[in-house]
């Protein structure tokens, strides 16, 4: 007989995402929304594992936008933007770092939670 055990692991892994900004009229947009910051209330963040985490999280990704194309997903925590640290910034500072007018490309370092199924098959003999 074969006994299969199924267990779930929560894995955090980091990913580097490169987003090319889209020009819309006078603005360069990235196509997602952010939430969080050290001046915000962290307990209201639905995406964070730790409710005291004041980091910047992706709260919405517009369909077909540059962010979705680049692979950004909702719930990602942005750690760095073009080398700038985003873990201890205010909400406004984060927005400013993402929307710099002279940058066409932003390279993000994000952390994503993922539920991984692991199937273990063990043989019982």
């Amino acid at each position, binding site marked *: 007989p074969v006994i299969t055990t199924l267990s779930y692991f929560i894995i955090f892994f980091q990913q580097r995402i490169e987003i090319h900004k889209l020009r819309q009229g006078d603005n360069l947009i990235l196509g997602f*929304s*952010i*939430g969080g910051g050290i001046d*915000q*209330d962290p307990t209201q963040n639905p995406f964070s594992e730790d409710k005291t985490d004041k980091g910047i999280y992706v709260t919405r990704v517009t369909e077909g936008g540059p962010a979705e194309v680049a692979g950004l997903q909702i719930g990602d925590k942005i750690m760095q933007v073009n080398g700038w640290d985003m873990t201890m910034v205010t*909400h406004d500072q984060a927005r400013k770092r*993402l*929307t710099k007018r002279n940058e066409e490309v932003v390279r993000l370092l994000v952390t994503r939670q993922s539920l991984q199924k692991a199937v273990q098959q063990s043989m019982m003999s």
Partner: protein
Amino acid sequence: KIESLKVTVDFLKVPLGLKKPPLKEALAAVPGPGRAKPLGVERHKPRRSDTMDNESQYSGYSYKSGHSRSSRKHRDRRDRHRSKSRDGSRGDKSVTIQAPGEPLLDNESTRGDERDDNWGETTTVVTGTSEHSISHDDITRITKDMEDSAHLDCSRHLGVSLAGALALLAFLTPLAFMLLPQLLWREELEPCGTPCEGLFISVAFKLLILLLGSWALFFRRPKAFFPRVFVFRALLMVLVFLLVVSYWLFYGVRILDSRDRNYQGVVQYAVSLVDALLFVHYLAVVLLELRQLQPQFTLKAVRSADGASRFYNVGHLSIQRAAVWILENYYHDFPVYNPALLNLPKSVLSKKMSGFKVYSLGEAENTTNNSTGQSRAVIAAAARRRDNSHNEYYYEEAEHERRVRKRRARLVVAVEEAFTHIKRLQEDDQKNPREIMDPREAAQAIFASMARAMQKYLRTTKQQPYHTMESILQHLEFCITHDMTPKAFLERYLTAGPTIQYHKDRWLAKQWTLVSEEPVTNGLKDGVVFVLKRQDFSLVVSTKKIPFFKLSEEFVDPKSHKFVMRLQSETSV
């Protein structure tokens, strides 16, 4: 009675070589605890170092002029007179403030039973003379003291009377100005009607006001005798003297010699003198009373024996006045000095003190090396042994705390119960006259039930020298008379109160020595330190200037207080 805390003057005669003994030496010269011994008379002669050989300490005995209505002006006149005759004393730094009326070696310096003699058994002290003999030095000191004190008394009386004479002269001068023409050349005077009468009335009232003002300002029982001239008073005395003399000078030349006929002019001249005297009085009020009211310095007074400290705010004062101020506050702010509480319990200390005795067996080469090596070895060994004594101290303290609390609980319960046995007689109570007691009897009746608990508690907290049975009974009677609760009765015993609370003959010492590196008539400045010494402890006083505050204004519109909820905001980028 703080007001009767008088200090007498003491002068330090430093040899005219005028070497200034530094503060430490001066402190060393006045003896530390435990070395003062009465010399058969009720005077205290401290042992002095050689640098202070000519020092004369003014010992205390009754000074009867406490009740003299000496005005402030008198004293500095005397001081000036005296300081002129002793110019050599300009450079000395240490003066004694001492109040008369009490024997110097009062019972405050009782040595507690548990005082630890920190000198080990191996210490040998070699003294030149034995404690009970009077050396030649002492004899010369005694005779010098007697001369000094007699001289001081005379000069003080002289000073007071001189200043009084000057004040009287200043008072009578206007009257004399007005009367002399009338007496000497009445026939030649021009008649002077209403203006003169008006001036007479104004002179009369101004003199009355001056009299009342002087009485209010100067005729107060002095609270202290300062060792040095009070500069402001001296200034005022000189001013008054010059004023009066110059007025008399002009009067003599212009009016008496020439026999001026204009009587109104003479009267106006007298009125102007009275006005000038009133202004001098105003100046006296400002200089003596008002100037020191605004706080400028913070004085920190620390008692050297146990570290009790207080802060005081004073204005511009000279060092000697600040010293008296501190002393006045010391008696009602500082908890009473209890020598029995100072030392670590014997059980802790005895282990520390029985150190190693290191013997050197047969090594004689390098004696200095040997001794330092020995001492280092002893210190090292002692350092290793000391590891445990803090532990013992901690447990001893905890045990003592527990004991005190237990005794205190017993005392409180005993007193509460005792107080329930008596109550005040109501009007309509029908009681047998034999059963009615006065407060004293009531106190005696209930004292027996609490006596034992009280005694045990006082023993544990080492307060028993301060409270005799008689004093406890008196206090109990006092509390019963005023309908106090047991807690109010106990407040006196549960915490160590200020010195003035205790029976004054025992605990109020009058002799204090002021030791200062700067002349004591200097004003207080930032960083000045002076010491008020008693026989077994001293008060170290340091000065700090109150900082200059820069207050700026900020207007807050009441409508500007607005608040928002802290939400998670979402921004699209």
